[in-house]
């Protein structure tokens, strides 16, 4: 006879723990060996009971964040962790996986998804609730395009001073006006200007103005007035 998989439930709502226990009892190959309502109790029980799996609500009264997930893993190297949380935002889910959990189920789908999640995670796979997996996949699919659009532009390589000078030049100020405004020499402004042009791959003031308008640095309509 194969031994039952031993589960520890960690959630600060006793009634929710009751609900989880009822769901788990639908499968006779699992047994709940302990319950905890705080991180402190959780770590103590992991150490004492060495469960195969922890069902974990991350929002616990004595700790915020995900740091203690590593503490659980350090106590019991082969332990599997399935988060059961009320949070459904992608950043939260990503952070949970980065911290070392193996699966994620949102609380309201526990009755339908929990047993699938437990089985999957105990096999050594990762599990994600279908109600959140769609947004995660969408995010991953758009990641490459997003990186290109949202960040990593050449503009990011400009120093704060170069940014400042770029705005003034794009607003139509002459080198001398910029120099006077910033109390620096014409030569210094010229040096900054050529650095800006080189970094952004621009060759004329018109290109600089166009670039500034494109990224939202200036409003071209203003020039018409």
């Amino acid at each position, binding site marked *: 006879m194969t031994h039952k998989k031993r589960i520890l439930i960690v959630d600060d*709502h006793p009634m929710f723990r009751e609900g989880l226990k009822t769901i788990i009892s639908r499968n006779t190959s699992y047994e709940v060996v302990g319950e905890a309502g705080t991180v402190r109790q959780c770590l103590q029980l992991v150490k004492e009971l060495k469960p195969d799996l922890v069902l974990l609500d991350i929002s616990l009264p004595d700790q915020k964040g995900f740091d203690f997930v590593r503490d659980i893993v350090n106590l019991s190297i082969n332990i599997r962790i399935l988060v059961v949380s*009320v949070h459904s935002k992608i950043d939260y889910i990503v952070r949970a996986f980065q911290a070392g959990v193996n699966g994620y189920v949102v609380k309201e789908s*526990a009755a339908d998804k929990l047993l699938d999640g437990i089985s999957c995670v105990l096999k050594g796979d990762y599990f994600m609730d279908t109600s959140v997996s769609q947004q995660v996949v969408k995010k991953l699919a758009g990641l490459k395009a997003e990186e290109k659009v949202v960040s990593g532009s050449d503009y990011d390589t400009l120093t704060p001073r170069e*940014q400042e000078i770029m705005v003034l030049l794009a607003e139509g100020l002459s080198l001398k006006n910029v120099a006077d405004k910033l109390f620096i020499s014409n030569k210094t402004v010229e040096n900054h200007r050529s650095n800006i042009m080189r970094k952004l791959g621009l060759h004329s003031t018109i290109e600089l103005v166009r670039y500034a308008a494109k*990224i939202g*640095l200036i*409003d071209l309509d203003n020039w018409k007035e």
Partner: protein
Amino acid sequence: MHVDSYIYVSKDVTYKKRAEKYINSFSQQLLLAQDRERRMISYELHDSIAQNLSVVKVSLDTLFDDYPEIPQALSKKNKILSNLIETTINSVRDLSYELRPSNLDEMDIVKALKTYTEDFYERSKIKIDFQSNGMKGLILNSESKIHIYRLVQEGLRNVRKHANASIVSVKIVGASPNIILNIEDNGVGFDIKERERKLDNEKRLGLRSMQERVNLLSGFMRIKSHLGYGTKIFIKIPI
């Protein structure tokens, strides 16, 4: 010309200046207090009400586990209630997030805005082009982050409510010593003067609260709109 007398007129504006300063500081405190309250309500909604509703849902979902002979009508009613609770949890969670994302303090503002614009698209189906430049390495304090976040939130809320737009672009640019924010839509636009007159009568917020926030940050905001040609909002705020 020979001058043998003159009249000297002066007005002490110290009180006026002092009053302006006082009003400015008071408004700033009001905005911060409003944000603290929103944070508290958002936290209660998410970590108390949504949590408790989850407990109710899991209890309903497992209510008849030990009673296999339960009448089908009862089981069906239970399912309907459970679905209703699930819809309510989602609404509570959305409302909590709309009031204030719980992780804004730890998050970088660009990521927070990116997530917000994605959610905005999911809810409104108005396409969003979100771009950020020159924001890497900028360390903003919590207050600045929340002000920027609220400006974008308010700007997009206006687009959703009034613009009838199909696309909106949000651009945020680090332009030392300022941050520049552009929100532009392709909607129906409006007559700015007419709108201002109406707003004064109706005491409605929206663009006015954005202007108020920008003023408090000693920033600058320009709105451009023409009927049928969309709306552009350009904001410059000191870092």
